[in-house]
């Protein structure tokens, strides 16, 4: 079985398993909260993964996630709320409009050689601000009053509201991660990695740099917009301040950096960890210190595992599985917490802490070269590789 068949089989298995979660929670009479928790995780996974296709793969650091997400939210809100479109016809338009926005931005910034690095990052940030202002002063879009989504009917075949949200976010999340995986494992992906490492050299070797950067930005915008469109239903009442704030761009950056930018699974893992922590802190009544704790965690992690937590997980996969499984088993057997999600959060915290042990100390604990029981990771980065040329 080739690596690709294995991963694609994994997608089908995970997808099917997740698909039946709402039915299972209903049968077991578990709280609705599990379904809501999961579809919010799906939302963040899709946002972070789509961002990573541009920034993680091509190295162009984007603060523009809010813009694509916002285009998606507002497209569905305006078309269904103000023009009576059905949700299912408005949704693809949301993705496509975001894609067009991405291409328009790319056409300008990727044409100008100097718009790289921090200038590119600031330009993408500006786009979100401009869009927010345009929406605020245009009464056909928002006009400063917000748009109600409560009257928008959801297709009946999707089930009740939460089940429908769950199914839609699941499909969009799977599509996004699949697209990220297929990109990572293709000419496009390797072309983007070479652009990230040294763009002029990549061009000289025949990588169509302009076209590839446009493709990456278009994919980023499309999936962010599509998920934004789905999310407009969850928001119910859409306002400029809720949609175009710094939350989405900031969180996707945190999640991807924590998970690891170089691998397509990095943002998936990062989104799962950060959202679970922040959700548990909120539900423990620690809303005020939530951001502080998540922020502190990120700083510590960024210092301890610079390449992100996912490459470490692959390296020490036995440890990861044992820690995760062990902590969940102990907590649920002795019924120590009131919710499975809390068990999971503690298990992840324990795993993250174990994975933070530096390589050298880890080798000494195990008494070997630090890599036994783990496959060599795919992206070796020597100490010299980080020195600027």
């Amino acid at each position, binding site marked *: 079985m080739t690596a690709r068949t294995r991963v694609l089989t994994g997608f089908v298995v995970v997808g099917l398993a997740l698909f039946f979660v709402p039915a299972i929670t209903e049968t077991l009479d578990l709280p609705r909260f599990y379904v809501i928790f999961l579809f919010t995780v799906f939302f963040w996974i899709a946002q972070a993964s789509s961002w990573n296709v541009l920034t993680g793969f091509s190295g162009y650091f984007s603060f523009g996630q809010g813009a694509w997400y916002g285009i998606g939210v507002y497209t569905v809100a305006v078309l269904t709320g103000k023009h009576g479109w059905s949700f299912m016809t408005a949704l693809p338009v949301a993705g496509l409009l975001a894609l067009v926005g991405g291409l328009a931005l790319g056409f300008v910034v990727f044409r100008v050689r100097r718009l790289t690095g921090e200038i590119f990052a600031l330009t993408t940030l500006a786009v979100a601000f401009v869009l927010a202002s345009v929406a605020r002063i245009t009464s056909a879009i928002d006009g400063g009053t917000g748009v109600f989504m409560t009257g928008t009917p959801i297709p009946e075949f999707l089930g009740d509201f939460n089940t429908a949200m769950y199914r839609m976010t699941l499909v969009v999340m799977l599509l996004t991660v699949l697209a990220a995986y297929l990109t990572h*494992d*293709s*000419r496009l992906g*390797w*072309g983007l*990695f*070479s652009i*990230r*490492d*040294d763009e*002029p*050299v*990549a*061009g*000289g*070797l*025949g*990588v*169509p*740099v*302009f076209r590839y950067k446009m493709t990456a930005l278009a994919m980023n915008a499309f999936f962010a917009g599509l998920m934004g469109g789905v999310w407009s239903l969850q928001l119910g009442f859409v306002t400029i301040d809720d949609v175009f704030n710094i939350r989405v761009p900031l969180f996707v950056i945190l999640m991807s950096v924590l998970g690891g930018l*170089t691998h397509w699974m990095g943002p998936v893992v990062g989104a799962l960890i950060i959202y679970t922590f922040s959700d548990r802190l909120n539900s423990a009544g620690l809303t005020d210190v939530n951001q502080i704790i998540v922020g502190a965690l990120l700083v510590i992690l960024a210092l301890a595992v610079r390449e992100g937590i996912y490459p470490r997980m692959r390296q020490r996969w036995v440890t990861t599985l044992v820690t995760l499984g062990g902590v969940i088993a102990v907590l649920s057997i002795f019924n120590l917490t009131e919710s499975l999600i809390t068990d999971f959060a503690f298990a992840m915290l324990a795993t993250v802490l174990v994975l933070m042990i530096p390589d050298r100390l880890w080798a000494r604990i195990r008494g070997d070269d630090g890599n036994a029981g783990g496959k060599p990771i795919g*992206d*070796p*980065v*020597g*100490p*010299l*590789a980080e*020195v600027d*040329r």
Partner: protein
Amino acid sequence: MSLLEVRGVRKRFGGVVALDGVDMRIEKGEILGLVGPNGSGKSTLINILSAFYPCDEGSISFDGEDATELTAHRIAALGLARTYQIPRPFDTMTPRENIAVSYMFGHSRHSLAEARKAAQQWLEFTGLEGVADIGIGELTLHQLKFLELARSLATQPSLLLLDEVLAGLNPSEINESVKMIRRIHERGVTILIVEHVVRVVMALSGRLVVLDQGRVISEGEPETVMTDPAVVTAYLGEKRPGA
């Protein structure tokens, strides 16, 4: 018809004229040496030929096609490859992956799976099999220079521009590199070699072009060119009157 033809190429950086109307031809199958004192415009010419940056005036044709306005990746697709004076590997990739990326793009399109297999051939050709799967940071300068060669060869070029591949190498490494360049030439690749080590250029190239202050001041057989009074003056300066 020449493989590459440069006509009246000019390039200025701010107030500095780097190339001042350069005319040059590279014939199919030759090794052409490009020499000249520091700052004479050799690297600028290579950068313009590989579309690293555009020229201000003049025209370039490659294999009969006008290549003046082409972007770098299109020129690479036509069959032109180059190396860098200071090696510029993709440093999050292993040597094998560096070579695979070039093979995937370069002169013709190949899939990732094909490229992974094909990389082996260039690793063996340059003797890098032993370090194929380690981090770039662990390679020596000599290995990095050979990786530059392997990577540019993997694009399957018809014309290879070598920008000081020997700089910083010790005498035995230089000899090894010279052999390598001969073997590349034997495979039918036309070569333009920019080099400071005059002994090597004399030994390798069938023809020399000498640049000074952005102009071609002499060209022809290596022995004849190196004794040309204009060349001697450019390298050693004017003879003092009466000395």
